[in-house]
C-alpha cells in the first residue's frame, strides 16, 4: 500500500533517518516567527502551525544567494561554480499552497531559453513533504485560485494530520522511493483514509473567501486603464511586505561583491520587488512605473493576468500572506472586490 501511518511521536525517528541523506528543512520557530530552516534536532520541528511567515520558497530561492564566486589570479579571473547544488534537500511540512508555489517558481525559472541552473538544480534535488491544512485561516483563499487545503500537487509525500498520527501518502516517484526506505512506518487503514477525506472536506467548507479568478483575469485584461487603480493604490505605502512574503514572487537583483582585500569576489542575487520605485528605473532616468498606481497595478496584473497568459495558470496560490502582512490593510480581498465591481458596474450600465 502507498499510504502509511506516522505516529506523531515518531517524528524524531523520521528525522534521524532522513537527515543522513538530506539537508532537512522544517518549520521551526525563529524569533517568534515560523520559518523553514535547516534544523539540527527533531524537537525544533513545529508542525502544528498556521503557516510560516516567510514562505519555504526561500529554501530553494533564498533572499540572498551566491551564483558563483571568482578569484583574481594575476591578470586572470577564475570562476568557481557552486559545489553545493548537488546536495539533496528535504523540505518537510509544507502547506499545500506553498508546495504548489514551487510549481509556479519552476515555471518561471525554466521559462523559455533562460534556464536558471542554480534554482533548477536545487529543485531537482529537493523532495517536498506537504501537509494538509485542517483549519485554513480566514485569510486563506487557495480554493479560489485552483488550489485546495489538501492539494498534493508539487509534493512528493503528503501528510494529513489525523490527531495522534499522520497519514503519509507518496505522491511522486521520488516520494515512493523515500517511503520505501522508511519500512518501519505502519500501514494506513481505510478509516484513516476516510478521516483524511473528511478533514479535507471540512477544511474546504470552512473557506470564507471565494472568488472567480477566471472572471478576475478577464476584468483585468480589459481594464488596464481604469480609475479603480487609483483607489486601490491610494493607501499603499509601498512597503513591499506583500512581495517579500509572497511564495510566488520571483524578482531578484544581481550584484557583484568585490573583496579587493582578498582578491576575490562573488556574484550574488537578492530578492527585489516591483513595489520599489527603483525597480523599473532605467539608466536614462526614465521610469515606466514612476508612481504607486502603476506599481500596485503591476503586482495584481502580474499575478492574475500576465501569469495566466504566460504560464496558463494564476500566479497566486492563495496563502493570504499579503493580506495579513499589509500594514495599511490594503489587502488583496478588497482589491479583488473592487476589480470585480467594475464588471458588475459594467453589467449594471449595460
Amino acid at each position: 500500500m502507498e499510504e502509511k501511518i506516522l505516529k506523531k511521536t515518531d517524528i524524531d525517528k523520521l528525522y534521524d533517518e532522513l537527515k543522513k541523506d538530506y539537508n532537512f528543512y522544517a518549520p521551526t520557530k525563529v524569533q517568534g516567527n515560523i520559518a523553514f530552516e535547516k534544523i539540527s534536532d527533531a524537537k525544533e520541528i513545529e508542525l502544528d502551525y498556521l503557516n510560516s511567515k516567510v514562505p519555504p520558497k526561500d529554501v530553494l530561492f533564498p533572499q540572498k544567494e551566491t551564483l558563483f564566486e571568482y578569484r583574481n589570479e594575476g591578470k586572470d579571473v577564475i570562476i568557481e561554480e557552486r559545489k553545493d547544488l548537488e546536495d539533496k534537500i528535504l523540505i518537510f511540512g509544507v502547506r499545500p499552497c506553498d508546495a504548489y508555489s514551487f510549481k509556479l517558481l519552476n515555471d518561471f525559472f525554466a521559462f523559455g531559453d533562460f534556464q536558471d541552473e542554480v534554482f533548477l538544480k536545487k529543485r531537482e534535488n529537493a523532495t517536498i513533504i506537504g501537509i494538509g491544512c485542517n483549519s485554513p485561516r480566514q485569510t486563506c483563499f487557495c480554493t479560489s485560485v485552483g488550489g485546495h487545503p489538501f492539494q498534493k500537487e508539487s509534493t512528493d509525500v503528503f501528510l494529513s494530520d489525523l490527531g495522534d498520527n499522520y497519514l503519509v501518502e507518496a505522491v511522486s516517484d521520488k516520494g515512493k522511493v523515500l517511503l520505501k526506505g522508511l519500512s518501519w512506518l505502519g500501514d494506513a487503514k481505510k478509516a484513516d483514509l476516510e478521516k483524511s477525506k473528511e478533514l479535507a472536506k471540512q477544511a474546504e467548507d470552512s473557506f470564507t473567501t471565494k472568488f472567480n479568478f477566471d472572471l478576475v483575469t478577464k476584468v483585468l485584461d480589459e481594464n488596464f486603464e481604469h480609475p479603480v487603480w487609483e483607489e486601490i493604490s491610494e493607501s499603499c505605502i509601498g512597503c513591499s511586505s506583500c512581495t517579500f512574503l509572497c511564495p510566488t514572487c520571483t524578482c531578484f537583483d544581481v550584484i557583484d561583491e568585490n573583496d579587493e582585500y582578498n582578491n576575490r569576489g562573488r556574484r550574488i542575487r537578492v530578492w527585489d520587488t516591483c513595489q520599489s520605485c527603483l525597480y523599473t528605473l532605467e539608466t536614462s532616468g526614465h521610469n515606466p512605473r514612476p508612481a504607486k498606481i502603476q506599481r500596485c497595478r503591476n503586482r495584481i496584473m502580474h499575478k492574475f493576468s500576465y501569469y495566466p497568459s504566460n504560464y496558463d495558470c494564476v500566479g497566486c496560490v492563495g496563502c493570504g500572506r499579503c493580506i495579513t502582512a499589509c500594514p495599511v490593510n490594503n489587502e488583496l480581498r478588497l482589491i479583488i472586490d473592487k476589480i470585480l465591481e467594475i464588471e458588475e458596474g459594467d453589467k449594471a450600465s449595460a
Partner: protein
Amino acid sequence: MGLETENKEIEISLREVARGLLKDKKVDVIIGYKKGTLPLLSQPIIIDSEKDVDKLIWNNLCYVNLAKYLVPRVPRFVDSEKGNLKVGVVSKGCVGRALIHLASENKIKLDEIKIIGIPCNGVVNRQRIEMEIGEKEILEVSVSGNSIIVKGKDFEKEFPFDEYMNDLCKGCKIRKPPLVSKAPDLCVGECEEYSNIVDEFTDIEEFDSKTAEEKWEHISEALSVCTRCYACREACPMCYCNLCFVDQNKPVWFGKTTDLPDIIVYHLIRAYHMAGRCVACGACSLVCPMGIDLNIINRKLEKIVKERFDFTSGLDPDVLPPMVDFKMEDAQEFMLEED
C-alpha cells in the same frame, strides 16, 4: 473611564469636527482611519464629503502615520485645477509632530493642511500580541476597560493594555498634536502647547550600561531576521528620499544582501538619518513583517538629541533641527584629548 468609552468619545467628537470642517469648506479632504478587515488593523481612508464622515473611526489600532500620505501627496490630495488641496489630517501626537517637522524640512506647507488633533492613548503592539498568541488565528480583538481582549476559534486571551501598548507609546509625553504659536489656524480638535518636555530614559540607560559585546549580540539577534524589505523605511514619514543610501550605486556604499553586517549597517545608518527627525510614531516597528522591534533605537535617538541638543522633534517648524544647527558650546566630551 475605560479605553472603550474614551475612544468612543474621541470618535464622536472627531466625526463632529470632521463634519464641520467639510461643511464649512475649511478643508477639501480629510485623511483618517476606518475599520480594518483584520482584527488587529485599521485602514487609512480619505473622505471628501460629509456623508462619509461616519466611516472615520478612532481606536487603539490606528497605527499608520498619516503624514506619510502627504510626502509626496497622494493623487487625491492634488486637484488638476486647484492644485494642492487643503487636507485635514486626523492626527494623534506623533502624526502632528511628523507634519510639523516635515514643514521644517520644506516638505509640507502648513497652510495647506489642518491638523485634527486626537488625544491618543497609545496603540496596541500588534506584533507582540501576534507572537504571544502564536500559531492560532486571531479572529476578534476588542479593547475594554484597560485590557485588550483577543479571541480566536477556541481561545480567548486578555492582555493588559499598559503592557501590550507599543513601547514608544508607553512613555509618550506628546499625546496630542502640538500647537504651533505661529500658525494658530493649523490645529483643530484636541491639541496642546508643549514646552520643556521632560523625559526619562531609564529603559535606554539600562541598555547603554551593557558591554559592547552584549549590545552587539542583542542588536545582531534582533535584526538577524530582517528581510530588508524596507517596510520600515516606506512607513516612516521621514523617509522620503528620492534615493535611499542603500540603493545608491555611485558609489556603492554598503552591501545590499541580508548578511548580518549589511543588515546592521542599514539599520545603523537609517537610525543616524533619523536623529532629530524621528517623531516616535513607531510606524517602522509596527509595519515590520518580521516583527522586529526598532523602538529601542528610536528611543536612543530621542535620548541623544534631548540630552545633547535639548531638542524634541516636531514641536516648532521654526526651530532648527539639531543636524543643521550648531552651537559653539556643544558638548564634545567624546573628542580625543591629551592625557
